[in-house]
């Protein structure tokens, strides 16, 4: 039961399936047409069409609730509605009609005369307070061609008009899944074009689970850090490492509704702090990394500058709990002594091999690592080097392929558009260098 969900019990008796004041929510507008994250503060607002609505009515509702815009005396407001029924009607209607569909589009001519309601008519109706659903009905009644359409395109027409005149807002819990999907769709460059199926593979390959100590180099604005922390459930650590002075920004972490327990386990430590003291002065390679990281730092600034993007509305508020403190000394010492239990690298602008060379040795023997990149070549080179240096075994480069389907009676087929690149993963297992296997 959810009351047993470790995270939430630690932070009080709050039901994680009901929204609360100050929580982060994912708002899905019109079935995925627009997705945005918001924090349910007193003053939080959402703009739908040309109307500004307060998000206040969302507080205290179960996640999964739907809302629509109604117009009251004090202007537009959000009111809760039952689960969308149109989709279900579609199914039933299709069942009986689809088999013997005899209508087709031979008589439809695109001359813009089919609809007799004008824009002014609709504005007039709106002024009189006619609801969105009623406008949709009126549009259908006044369409000369509606009856001639196939049942399927009638439904398409209805949905299209409903989205425009009676938009639906669905409240979702923000999870790594939905956060990654939303970013990939709207701002792929921010998360290095890491697609959700690749992210899920990455977490599996890295064996992320409660009580693990995961070392990450996350230059995807905290997406990896957040996804790992979600799987740790407040037990174990996710440690962000960096070169130089400034840790990478992890803004996306704030979109998860993490408990204080979980936030405490999101920490950072610089490479030199994590490396055994004897090693920190020797190699030239470290300097090299430092050089490279200048690029990263420039980008750090870029990334951490206040974002005015659609995806994050109202998230900036200082009220949210703080994640990403400095790693406690005893944790660092324990990692130095025992090694990390997994390693994840996602650094789109740095050379994969120069990072792997430094970070793979910080892993326990037999511990897995995963390196993400949106391009294949840097991983191929890195894999070749790891092989030649005999640092790892079970090395593999993989790419995930994901296709979504439309499933409807007699009309099932893959979606017409799909993402053709979700990035590449180089995976492997660290081995001990000392013992050579007897021939």
């Amino acid at each position, binding site marked *: 039961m959810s009351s047993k969900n470790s995270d939430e019990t630690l932070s009080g008796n709050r039901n994680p399936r009901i929204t609360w004041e100050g929580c982060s929510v994912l708002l899905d507008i019109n079935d995925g047409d627009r997705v945005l994250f918001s924090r349910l503060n007193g003053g939080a607002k959402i703009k739908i069409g040309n109307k500004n609505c307060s998000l206040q009515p969302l507080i205290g509702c179960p996640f999964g609730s739907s809302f629509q815009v109604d117009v009251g005396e004090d202007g537009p407001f959000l009111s809760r509605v039952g*689960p969308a029924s149109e989709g279900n009607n579609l199914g039933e209607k299709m069942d009986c009609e689809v088999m013997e569909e005899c209508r087709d589009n031979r008589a439809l001519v695109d001359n813009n005369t089919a609809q007799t309601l004008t824009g002014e008519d609709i504005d007039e109706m709106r002024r009189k307070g006619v609801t969105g659903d009623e406008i949709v009905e009126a549009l259908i009644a006044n369409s000369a061609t509606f009856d001639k359409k196939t049942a399927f395109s009638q439904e398409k027409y209805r949905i299209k008009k409903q989205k425009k005149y009676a938009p639906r807002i669905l409240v979702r819990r923000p999870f790594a899944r939905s956060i990654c999907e939303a970013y990939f769709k709207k701002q792929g460059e921010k998360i290095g074009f890491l697609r959700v199926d690749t992210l899920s593979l990455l977490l599996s390959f890295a064996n992320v689970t409660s009580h693990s100590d995961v070392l990450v180099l996350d230059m995807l604005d905290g997406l990896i850090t957040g996804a790992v922390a979600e799987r740790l459930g407040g037990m*174990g650590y996710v440690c962000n490492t960096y070169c130089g002075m400034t840790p990478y920004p992890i803004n996306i972490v704030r979109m998860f509704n993490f408990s204080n327990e979980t936030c405490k386990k999101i920490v950072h430590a610089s490479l030199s702090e994590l490396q055994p003291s004897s090693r920190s002065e020797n190699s030239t390679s470290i300097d090299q990394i430092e050089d490279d990281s200048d690029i990263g730092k420039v980008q750090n600034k870029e990334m951490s500058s206040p974002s005015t993007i659609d995806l994050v509305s109202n998230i900036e508020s200082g009220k949210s709990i703080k994640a990403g403190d400095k790693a406690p000394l005893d944790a660092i010492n324990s990692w130095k002594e025992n090694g990390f239990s997994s390693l994840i690298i996602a650094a789109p602008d740095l050379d994969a091999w120069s990072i792997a060379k430094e970070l793979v040795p910080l892993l326990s023997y037999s511990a897995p690592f995963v390196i993400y990149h949106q391009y294949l070549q840097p991983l191929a080179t890195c894999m070749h080097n790891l092989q030649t240096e005999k640092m790892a075994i079970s090395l593999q480069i993989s790419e995930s392929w994901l296709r979504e389907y439309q499933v409807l009676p007699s009309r099932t087929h893959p979606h017409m558009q799909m993402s053709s690149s979700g990035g590449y993963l180089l995976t492997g297992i660290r081995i001990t260098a000392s013992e050579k296997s007897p021939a």
Partner: protein
Amino acid sequence: MLPIDPTKKLSFNRRIADGDLVIVYERYDTMKPIKVSEKGVLQNRFAPTPELWTLVLSHRTQILYIADISFVVMYLELVPGCVVLESGTGSGSLTTSLARAVAPTGHVHTFDFHEQRAASAREDFERTGLSSLVTVGVRDIQGEGFPDQLLGQADSVFLDLPQPWLAIPSAAKMLQQDGVLCSFSPCIEQVQKSCEALKLYFTDIRTFEVLLQTYEVREGNFGSWQDSDGASSFLKGCKKRQRNNLEASGTQTVIARRNGETRGHTGYLTFARLNCSM
């Protein structure tokens, strides 16, 4: 397999102990699970992970592989503490990953109507140290539905059944509000019927296919065209000299290409979210 017991956690100083389960890596394509005993002498031993376990477990049924497994765990929104129901258990390939996701405070209730298969799965979970996280029940979920004592308890439900639509009404009753269901079916006709049944109780119904492609990487050595000599470079006789020539002048680069043979289909994954009642 999971780091719940702190004394068994991986560390630089951790040595393989008597009674440990390890995965033995012989070649890139041969691995097997071994219970370590005093007399064992082997190199390349690994601490098991669900991924390695999937590669070495004994197949009692067709199993799910890592691409599907990872996607299911992500889309079911599993986090530590969740309760998840699964039917059927099969060879326990997915079960192991479900357990990893909900550990240490959550639980996996998995059901199979095949008594012997359930018993073998139980033994496996004992061996991999997951028995405290997984309960294996013998039950025909399609015929009887999930047991009543789990009513409204599940955060997520996973179905891998020949006729999933028969189990969907019961699955809907087990789920908490806004909970997620996944049904895995190899055939599109099964998907079609399941989606029909899902519409009654669920929203956000989405069907996916996910596949994994792997790459082979090697060092390539490409000579320049100008240094080559037409057809003669293909002649066996002078091949060696030719190649020496090319190596001297050619460029060494690491090259990658997709592996030739790959899985073309595993199954369709249909996800749906329980309707939120007013």
